[in-house]
């Protein structure tokens, strides 16, 4: 789960990390008042769950309240990589001597949490990793003991920091690691981490991505969720326990299993079509769940055909068929349906669907081809 910068900053400061605390504003007038309160130059930053907001013009400097209001008005009207900006963070502008990067992330290859730092701060760290990987220093935390103090110090020395800066930096690295572990994050990042002109450390941007799997043991994190930042269809899917990712193609996919769902999308493209979504109805998909899935997919106006691909394992074919028939009663299906159903009790399932006048095909390839043809307005019946 993504959270906003201001929310991440609040969490960081709870763990002792010095952050450039700002005021969250939803209107230009609020931004003006915030700038007035700080009585200095301010920075106005879009609060959106996508990267690259600086390049997109979502971060502006303002000399005072007047400029802050103007800048906030512009940013609040923006859409950054498809995401509308509903809030800005207004914070005092800082006199920066140098910018660093400090992040904590899971390293899947070593199955450990890694703390990364770089003197090339303030820019896209993925770019640094690609172009000049030697500019990133890393320490791998012990899975059972965590990050040792000496490791945190070693990061500071590896960055070439002056002696007096190393210990405060190491303290910060340990605080960030502690915060990461405590909130069950999958990413915690300070970029840039500023060394100010008075030689103190300050987090200028705060980023946390929370591990979805761990949300059950952090009920307090539910309050951090921003419903405005999430696709409404994805929200509805989540509430129904369905994995759904909206894409921009024309063929709606309803599949059981994540891997099979991806493979189905790939098959659609292989035969010249474009998938409208990823959708996994889950293991023991109930009638109701299949119906919800179908409704979700059909509510996308771009969808010209729906491909249903169910490989029964623990999902029984007759249960799926029942769900489809239920759903078809309640949903206005205005596009062709192509159904592929294999697995436990497939004969019963296929029989039920055939009796209702629906066509069921044997293979995933055939289903994908038929769906592509249907989406192009060509005949689907064999």
């Amino acid at each position: 789960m993504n959270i906003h910068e201001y929310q991440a900053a609040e969490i960081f400061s709870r763990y002792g990390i010095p952050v450039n605390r700002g005021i969250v504003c939803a209107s230009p007038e609020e931004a003006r008042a915030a700038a007035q309160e700080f009585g200095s130059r301010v920075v106005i930053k879009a609060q959106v769950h996508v990267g690259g907001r600086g390049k997109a013009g979502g971060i502006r400097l303002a000399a005072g309240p007047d400029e802050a209001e103007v800048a906030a008005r512009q940013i609040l009207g923006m859409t950054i990589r498809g995401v509308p900006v509903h809030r800005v963070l207004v914070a005092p502008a800082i006199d920066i001597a140098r910018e660093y990067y400090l992040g904590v992330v899971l390293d899947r290859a070593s199955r450990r949490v890694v703390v990364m730092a770089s003197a090339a701060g303030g820019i896209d760290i993925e770019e640094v990793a690609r172009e000049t990987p030697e500019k990133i220093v890393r320490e791998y935390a012990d899975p059972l003991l965590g990050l040792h103090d000496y490791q945190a110090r070693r990061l500071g020395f590896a960055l070439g920091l002056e002696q007096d800066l190393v210990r405060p930096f190491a303290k910060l690295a340990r605080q960030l690691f502690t915060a990461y572990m405590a909130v069950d994050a999958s990413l915690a990042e300070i970029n840039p981490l500023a060394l100010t002109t008075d030689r103190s450390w300050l987090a200028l941007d705060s980023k946390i991505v929370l591990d979805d799997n761990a949300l059950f043991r952090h009920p307090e994190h539910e309050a951090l969720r921003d419903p405005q930042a999430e696709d409404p269809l994805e929200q509805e899917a989540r509430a129904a326990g369905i994995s759904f990712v909206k894409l921009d193609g024309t063929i709606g996919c309803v599949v059981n299993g994540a891997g099979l769902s991806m493979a189905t999308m790939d098959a659609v493209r292989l035969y010249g079509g474009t998938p409208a979504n990823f959708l996994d109805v889950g293991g023991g998909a109930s009638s109701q769940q299949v119906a919800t899935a179908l409704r979700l997919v059909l509510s996308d106006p771009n969808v010209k055909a729906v491909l249903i691909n169910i490989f029964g394992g623990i999902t029984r074919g007759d249960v799926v068929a029942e769900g489809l028939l239920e759903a078809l009663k309640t949903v206005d299906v205005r596009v062709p349906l192509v159904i592929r159903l294999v697995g436990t009790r497939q004969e019963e399932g296929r029989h039920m669907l055939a009796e209702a006048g629906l066509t069921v095909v044997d293979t995933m390839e055939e289903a994908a081809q038929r769906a592509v043809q249907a989406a192009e307005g060509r005949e689907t019946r064999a």
Partner: protein
Amino acid sequence: MSVLVNRETRLLVQGITGREGSFHTAQMLEYGTNVVAGVTPGAAGREAHGVPVFNTVTDAVAATRPNVSIIYVPAPFAPDAIYEAVDAGIPLVVCITEGIPTLEMVRVYQYVKSRGCRLIGPNCPGLITPGQAKVGIMPGYIHQPGPVGVVSRSGTLTYEVVWALTQAGIGQSTAVGIGGDPIIGTSFIDVLAMFQEDPETEAIVLIGEIGGTDEEAAAGYIREHVTKPVVGFIAGRTAPPGKRMGHAGAIISGGQGTAAEKIAALEAAGVPVAERPAQVAELIRKALG
């Protein structure tokens, strides 16, 4: 032969009286798996489908000597179930559970390794040696005994590929679902090494997906150590970056973990990669000659 599970498997089911555990115990028994015991704290003395139930894994081990445990316990309690199995000395633990916190798995992985045990999963369908033992949630009837080892991060996609193999008259030595989470107990490389050693496995199918770099690592391993033919399939060619595609581990992050990179790595290691699941069977037939 085969790998990991066979006729000698004596299976313990943790969470045997739960909905999933009970249902799949019946399914595994029906397939012929030797299920010797179950554990549900507080349910000792009961039977589930004729299988004796114990309060603790220690009790189950003392009474029935299981050598494999399968876990159908909800995510909040699954790590504890893994620790319990490992501490009782069970050498192979299969965790079906989806949704275990990733940082919990960092600890679990290290602990299991330090005890010299093997964990399969979590968030996996389990594994099956056709005709001998089904330790998981896969439909048994789609498999048949034969020479192809299958290793996969996915569930239903594995069934799809196995079904294509079986329909083409090609059986499987063992099919192992290693799981779709970012941290899993057993990697592609571990299973590739076992298949390479197994005299009855003549060819290998590797089914990967976007996210992480395990397929790339597997490709490197194949080039150096695997002499048997390997055929690959990678799901997620059309997956967008930054979005979790169902599995917690199926996400392209920081430009890493794309299908294109994985396919390129496998092909560079001489592994043909199928464009469609059914094509895996065609490529395997060619490889087997």
